[in-house]
């Protein structure tokens, strides 16, 4: 499903070179869920962005569904993202000018895979039914978070990449959102790579890896 092989990434900043990832190897299979932990600034988001093809590694290669990202041209990479990936950002990145329902089905429509029944189902499951005409700024933080998750799942992706999807929520809401996310992931049988700070959130997932000093280590020997 998702394979990272010896991935390196260094940022050049005005203050000099900043190596963030130093040889990451990672494999994620269909239907599997993986929690990615690590302290702030350790490069979790960077890794996620590389996996999504939003950025390119300096060394190593990444493949999704057997396709090497580096061998794809930009339009093909965009198409792969559109058709197969679901992204939940740390800052939700909802489209402020579109209402709830249009935000929800945006990617599905772009991928020409809109499924009205599934959208309605998601809307109900996310607790956003009745708020279709609201604009993002009229939603609470948790609601926005749920909408972002819904948008990623509406396309029925084969891989869901989520960057701290519960980071902005209190513990109780976080639990609810997480439970919902996992249920929906199970329903669609997609693979899940989730970045989180919280061991509680990581617990229900199949596997856990920790990013430290640019390398992945398995905390459970």
């Amino acid at each position, binding site marked *: 499903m998702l394979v990272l092989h010896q991935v390196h990434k260094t940022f050049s900043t005005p203050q000099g070179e900043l190596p963030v990832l130093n040889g990451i190897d990672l494999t994620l299979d269909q239907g599997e869920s993986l929690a990615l932990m690590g302290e702030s600034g350790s490069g979790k988001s960077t890794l996620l962005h590389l996996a999504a093809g939003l950025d390119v590694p300096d060394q190593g290669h990444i493949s999704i569904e057997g396709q090497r990202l580096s061998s794809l041209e930009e339009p093909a990479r965009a*198409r792969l993202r559109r058709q197969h990936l679901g992204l939940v950002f740390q800052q939700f990145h909802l489209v402020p000018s579109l209402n709830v329902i249009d935000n929800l089905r945006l*990617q599905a429509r*772009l991928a020409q895979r809109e499924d009205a029944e599934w959208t309605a189902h998601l809307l109900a499951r996310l607790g956003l039914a009745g708020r279709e005409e609201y*604009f993002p700024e009229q939603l609470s933080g948790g609601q926005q978070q749920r909408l972002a998750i819904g948008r990623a799942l509406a396309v029925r992706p084969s891989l869901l990449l989520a960057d701290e999807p519960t980071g902005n929520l209190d513990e109780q809401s976080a639990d609810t959102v997480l439970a919902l996310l996992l249920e929906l992931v199970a329903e669609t049988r997609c693979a899940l790579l989730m970045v989180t700070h919280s061991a509680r959130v990581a617990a229900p997932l199949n596997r856990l890896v920790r990013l430290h000093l640019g390398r992945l280590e398995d905390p459970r020997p």
Partner: protein
Amino acid sequence: MIWRVLATLLAHYRRHPGQLAMLLLGLWVASALWSSVQAVNATAKDSYARANALFSAEVDQLTRRDGQSLTRDDYLTLRRAGLPVSPMLEGTLEIGEERLTLIGIDPLTLPNDNALGGNGDALTAFLTPPWQTQLAPETIDVLGLSRRQAPGATPTVDNNQRLPPLTLRPELPPNTLVMDIAAAAALLDSDNTLSQLVTAPGALTQPPDGYRLSRAATLASPEQLTDSFHLNLTALALLSLVVGLFIVQAALGLAMEQRLTTLRTLRALGVPAFTLTMAILLELLVFGLVGSALGLASGIWLAGQLLPDVATTLSSLYQADVQRSLVLPWHYWVGSLVITLGGLLLAGSGVLWRAARLEILALGQSQAWRLGYQRQLKRMTQGGAVVAVIAVGLALWLSRLPSGQGVLVSFGFVAALLLGSALCLPPLINGVLRLLQRLLHRRPLAHWAVADIQLQLPRLSLAMMALLIALATNLGVSSMVGGFRLTFLDWLDQRLAAPLYINASPSTLTPMLDWLDAQPDVDETLPTARGSVDLLAEKNARGKETTRERIALFGITPAPTITNRWPLLDTQTGRSAAWSALSARSVFINEQMAVAKQLAPGDVVTLETPQGAMPFEIAAVYPDYGNPRQQILMPTDVLVQRFGGDIASIGLVVNESADRQALRQALADNFDVSPDALVDQQEIKRLATQIFERTFTITRALNGLTLGVAALALFATLLAQARERQRQLASLWALGVPRKTLTQLPLYQLGGLVLLTGVMAIPLGIAITWTLVAIINVAAFGWRLPLYLFPWDIFITLLTALGVALAAAALPSIQLWRSSPQAMLNKGVV
């Protein structure tokens, strides 16, 4: 997919209709003002082309040396002598209120093939009874007919005669009827007289004995004379186009910035960069088409409003006839569309470029963006410096050109000056703000206000640049017009020395002079005369040059009443010496001639007199505003006796107790003149002032509109930012700043910014005024004006700009006052 993307992009405007309005407003204004001026120009061009299709500009003309009018006998004599002349008869026909020019020609002898008359059957129909009346389709309305009825109709004119059957000829000028000379003679009741005898250009090398020959080339065509007038209009229109595009660019940039997250999200969700760029291009085209359609429609309306004034100006200033209904050829439509769309793409190119190179991941985006703006400021400074160097170069070039030349170079200079200053404005403001920030670091709120306006600068700078350009031009043009007005009114006072004037035909005026001198009530008669002469050579400081050119002559009576007041620009040894020289054998020349031929007092012109070529010394140069032609001035009696001139008018000084009404009646009883041939000086002044005001109507209108547009640009930019401003203010409120203070802060911030821009506009405006009065006007019209400045007008213009800025700045404050700041804090979450 592209449609979906486009729909997502357009959804932004549904939530921010203000930005859409601003975008369309910019496009609308840019295209409306541009297309209206182009419509006026196209119509005038069409009129000139049609006037040229007639003969007068392209043939040589013969007149009698003795000043008598031409008759058929002249024609027969010349034909018998074997000269290829053709007779022409011109007159006016009155139909109700309207006056039509009637031209009778003889198509068989008419020199060049101007397609009149026709050939074959058409020629026969033209030449034989019942003859034909050829006229342009527009003229039909005057005759009270519809287009369908017109062909073949024989309408009645005021003297109860019928016109020959009508035939439409679109290439003829409006309000002109052309027919065979025999038919015209019957209609005009002209007996034996002819108006002109014409020959093909160059057909005669020497005028026949007793005749005078005016060459075609010496009669400047209306197109040449009015060239600079149209150039001035085009320059103003270009200015409003640029200001409009500034707004468009500001609106596009703002919309782009607010949609950056959306664009990145779309890319992250799998929209290829190319599709995204194309969608934005498509969006631009949609707006472009809507904007240009709106602009064209209102541009044509505006042109329709302005055209009568322009036509009056052109006819009073240049005797160029322009029709009063618009004529818009196909290339006008295409041209306007291309200019608007091209301008839009130019303004949108930055946005397209950014969209194409969009980084999906933009961590630390605002920081990078700020760095980017610093880089942009640096580039602006460099660009401004380059343009300033160009401006200096052009100024040097101008200073080496002889005066009266370089209209295009001076427009280039003004453009470079404006652009250079506009480019330097944001770096300058930035520098001032930095300085302020350093000075104010102990006063937190003021410090914040400066830092905050510095953050807003990237968005505001375009509107500020547009405002600077518009303010400077407005100041420049209005002080030029105002200064001209003062000069002109003064000049009019000096030129119109006599309290009464009589206008009539020369044959009436000449006997009238003796009669007037015998009237006890009349203290003084001051006849003027007109004529023309061949200028054979001119000798100035740089040497002697021989030419042969027809120059207009003007005669005045050098009595103290006139010589005490008649305005002079330049003399060799003072006024009184100049006037005594004039009474001896010197001449004066007008400023237009001095500029065009680079002549000064002391130089010599050689004129052809009946006694042969004779040199005349130039004693003075006088201002002659409103006259497009060169002119030589001499005493009336010299002009009449030596140069075959005609009395053109008589100025009268009457004693205090004189009964003007009785004089008027006596004139009408004794001579073939209407009672209104005697006009009051005040009446002439009123008319001249009126013509003057109309001349600048279009300039004033365009000028005002441009400033209005710039104010709107600023207003719209501020409005578009109002929401974010509220958020900023709300967070200050959360930190404990009282609402009252918060309401005032934006006023200080923007007021200061606009004031800075306004202050910078003042020297720029003065530079523009100077270029206009000292270079462009001299080259375009032949007269130079003193530089006048109007501090009160400058103050009012500044105040207006300030008012707009404060009104716009007050908006977020008022909203903050009305709604709870907490609500606004919440809005900031997304």
